[in-house]
């Protein structure tokens, strides 16, 4: 753990140095220096309108993630149980993963209209796929003896999930939830960048329009720090779960 902390710190210092060097090389027009960006970010957080944008993004993201988790687990368990459907549909789901989903956004906008619903839907189509795939794999990889025990005890399908599959497969399912978290965040931010009047993604596009370099960099910084921090924490939990088994 200590080594991990040291590596993380080295990396952060390295990235900051790289940023400062880039700034010295390109100058004020294209980049804001790390210090200026941090100061601007601090100022942003004290303004009420910025907090409202952050809240907007977080709300869309939270709803999208909740839906992704429920749908992903449901479909994942179904495909895991039903061997034929699982074998047939898994490659199709994998290929959906490789599609540039941004191009589907116009369809979602037409279907859901401008606003929260479209953002949520877009986050869900990004986040649900890894959760399905990891859950499916987790069910397939569960030791057959556990399933047999369940059948001997005449557990119903629901009891089987609740008492056997879920506890046995939790490390792998958690990996899916972790990847799904990142992708849902990406999805909901992208949706805001393309068509939205609110949220961090909108602020980014606004920053380009106004050529406000400090705003662009501060918002990017906030997003990156948030995503990286949460994913480090999730990764840590993930490793511990995997070690336990």
């Amino acid at each position, binding site marked *: 753990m200590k*080594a*991990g902390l040291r*590596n*993380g710190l*080295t*990396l952060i210092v*390295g990235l900051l140095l790289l940023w400062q060097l880039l700034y010295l090389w*390109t100058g004020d027009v*294209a*980049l804001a220096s790390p210090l200026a960006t941090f100061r601007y970010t601090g100022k942003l957080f004290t303004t009420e309108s910025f907090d409202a944008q952050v809240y907007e993004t977080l709300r869309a993201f939270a709803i999208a993630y909740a839906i992704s988790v429920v749908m992903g687990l449901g479909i994942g368990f179904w495909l895991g149980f039903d061997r*034929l*459907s699982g*074998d*047939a*549909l898994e*490659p*199709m789901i*994998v*290929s959906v*993963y*490789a*599609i*540039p*989903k*941004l*191009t*589907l*956004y*116009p*369809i979602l*906008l*037409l*279907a859901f209209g401008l606003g929260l619903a479209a953002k949520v839907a877009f986050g869900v189509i990004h986040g649900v796929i890894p959760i399905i795939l990891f859950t499916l794999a987790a069910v397939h990889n569960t030791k057959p003896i556990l399933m047999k025990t369940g059948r001997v005890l005449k557990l119903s399908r629901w009891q089987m999930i609740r008492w056997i599959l879920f506890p046995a497969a939790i490390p792998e399912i958690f990996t899916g939830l972790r*990847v799904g*978290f*990142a992708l849902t*965040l*990406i999805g909901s*931010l*992208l949706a805001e*960048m*393309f068509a939205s009047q609110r949220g961090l993604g909108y602020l*980014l*596009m606004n*920053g*380009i329009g106004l*050529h406000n*370099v400090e705003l*662009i*960099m501060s*918002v*990017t910084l906030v*997003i*990156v720090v948030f*995503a*990286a921090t*949460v*994913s*480090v924490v999730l*990764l840590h939990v993930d490793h511990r779960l995997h070690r336990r088994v």
Partner: protein
Amino acid sequence: MNRLFWYRTLVVVAAIAVLEVLCLTGVIDRITMQPPHRIAIDLAHILASGSMNGAIRKTLGNSAIALVSALVVGIAFGVLLHGYRGARDALDPLFATYYAVPVFAFYPFFIVVFGFGDVPQVLIGFMLGVVAVIVNTLNGLDRVPSVLLKTARILRLSPADTALRMTLPYAGPYVLTGIKLAVAYAFIGVIGSEFIMSRGGIGYEISFAYANFDNATMYPLIVLILLASVAVNGLLGVWEQRLLARRGLR
């Protein structure tokens, strides 16, 4: 195998049929979506007239540049990094969290730095792909048995020769997994950034058609992208399975 094939075909055909019926009966109105047969006809028209050839060429060209540079840099960097334990340990947290960070969030910033040309789009495609290549190259190199390395030393191969003749061929299937991801990411990066803000390419044409309610252009182009990415992904998947099967890994 055959049963799976029919199951899949059935799912696709059923989905299209449902859409067709919903569109024709007016549950989904015409402004929202064209019926599938109409999309197919429009797509054929667009391809036959060649009106989108410029955009297609631009997108494919940029994706190819992004892909090739991601592969060259990724594999070279992976091989180099494999030799330096300390550097690798320091970069490990970066690799682990890399895909949690929305790379597209850097796009506005790249536009400011590099201007409105092709560079920001290629760069996004490159950035999305390169880490997948590095991680998978490292993963493959980790699995090279030490007897191969010893043989290389006995034959007095230079480090470059060892990489090109011994370790990389052995790591082939793992590197291919990285390549498969890089192809998808190059497409996603280039088309996605064209879509957000650019002056050309298929992504741009789709967002332009969307802004003009031009469904007769938008849907065929979306379908074209879906077909292209599913086809490329499928082909690479088959190749990957073959390579793995030859090694007895699957």
